């Protein structure tokens, strides 16, 4: 080749491979069914064995359809069921969120200050204002990947999901609902109606950390949520629930071994250092263009320390 360099990377755009991939961003046609109400939607999904996908705001679904990562033949649009599925309610120590509650709704609610402030922290780092205005918590959960910022948050709160179908409803713990990357326990005839969790009681606090390459409009390299409850002595862990966007591969989950390890321990520098090691040992992370597995593991440990310190500091009344 006599030292002739291959074309600079800028030329790559014009090779045939790129042109083909460019064409594939055009969305294939899809039929849209707009049910009159929730019951109509459930009946439609019951009687139709075809490739049906529920669409709420579409902020995650539309890009995935354009990239041909998902090719539903029929979309069932539930975005108009605001009265049925968009609410934030609290009663008897339980918080219930309708699946169509938007991230902006979470930020505007007075409920997520104080010990549930983790939800606001996550909301403020979610997408960007124009995404938060429409993106729903149900859509975030059903998308079921490591990109979904709210999954670790609700997992740390031990949230349960109410799934409804024409034949009835059932309740599933979120941690059992996510069964793999982009894979859930949801049946084709079901719709996610509600996210429910207990208000953390006693001496508890929650906190959230997210690392991305910028603050807005970014998919997390690591996001990590903690719900911590201490005993009366304000030092011993009664319950610690750490959840991350990736624990094994690209699947969000609770860090079960870390949580077990922390239970009954005093929150000291020593304990935190040991918990970091336990967390590192249970994480099995892969590398991709956002970050290497080793980097993710390092950040996850740093965040664990930060979250434990922030929560115990808040519970201890800043002593």
């Amino acid at each position, binding site marked *: 080749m006599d030292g002739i360099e291959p074309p600079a990377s800028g030329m790559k755009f014009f090779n045939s491979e790129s042109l083909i991939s460019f064409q594939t*961003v055009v*969305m*294939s*046609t*899809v*039929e*849209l069914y*707009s049910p009159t109400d929730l019951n109509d939607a459930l009946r439609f999904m019951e009687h139709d064995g075809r490739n049906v996908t529920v*669409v709420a*705001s*579409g*902020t995650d679904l*539309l*890009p995935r*359809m*354009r*990239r041909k990562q998902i090719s539903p033949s029929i*979309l069932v*649009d539930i*975005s*108009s069921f605001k009265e049925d599925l968009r609410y934030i309610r609290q009663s008897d120590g339980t918080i219930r969120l309708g699946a169509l509650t938007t991230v*902006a709704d979470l930020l505007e609610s007075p409920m997520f200050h104080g010990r549930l402030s983790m939800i606001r922290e996550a909301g403020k780092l979610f*997408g*960007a*204002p*124009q*995404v938060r*205005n*429409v993106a729903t918590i149900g859509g975030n959960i059903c998308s079921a990947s490591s990109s979904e910022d709210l999954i670790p948050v609700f997992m740390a709160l031990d949230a349960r999901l109410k799934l409804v179908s024409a034949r009835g409803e059932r309740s599933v713990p979120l941690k059992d609902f996510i069964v793999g990357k982009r894979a859930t326990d949801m049946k084709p005839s079901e719709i996610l109606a509600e996210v429910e969790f207990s208000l953390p009681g006693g001496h508890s606090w929650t906190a959230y950390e997210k690392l991305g390459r910028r*603050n*807005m*409009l970014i998919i997390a390299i690591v996001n990590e949520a903690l719900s911590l409850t201490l005993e009366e002595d304000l030092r011993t862990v009664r319950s610690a629930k750490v959840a991350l966007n990736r624990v094994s591969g690209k699947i969000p989950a609770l860090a079960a071994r870390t949580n077990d390890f922390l239970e009954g321990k005093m929150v000291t520098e020593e304990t935190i250092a040991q918990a970091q090691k336990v967390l590192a040992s249970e994480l099995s992370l892969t590398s991709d263009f956002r970050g290497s597995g080793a980097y993710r593991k390092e950040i996850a440990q740093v965040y664990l320390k930060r979250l434990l310190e922030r929560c115990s500091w808040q519970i201890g009344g800043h002593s």
Partner: protein
Amino acid sequence: MNKRGITINVNGTEHPLQVDGSDRLIDVLRDQLSLKSVKEGCSTGDCGICAVLVDGKLVNSCLMLAAQCDGRRVTTLEGLLEDPTMKRMQGRFIANNAAQCGFCTPAMLIASWDLARHSTEPSNEEIKLAISGILCRCTGYYQIVDSVREGCEGGRR
């Protein structure tokens, strides 16, 4: 594939439209209604250049199906050209050279106008938050932030 009839109120006028299930709001605004201030950048919700107001809320029009906007109210920059707040905001953008290539400018203006409705004395942080969903590839953010502040402050009476 059957098209369906929908009606969207765009910039104060009711528009009966025929759309496919896969038509996005941006497709209808640009291709059927020729509202070219609405730009298509990334098509995946990462750049915010396609921002419009739907029922008064800032959204990305590339991430919304047109059929989902049936019966709703959409506002683009074209609909705000005679609005005094928008005129003032545009004036500040021009005076400060806040448009370089200009591609993000319509989205920046509509997000700024949305901020100016709620705040006449926004802090720099509030301004940055308001435009945080819109990427300026020229990275001329200082001029944009200055213009938004001046545009908002001009609303004080």
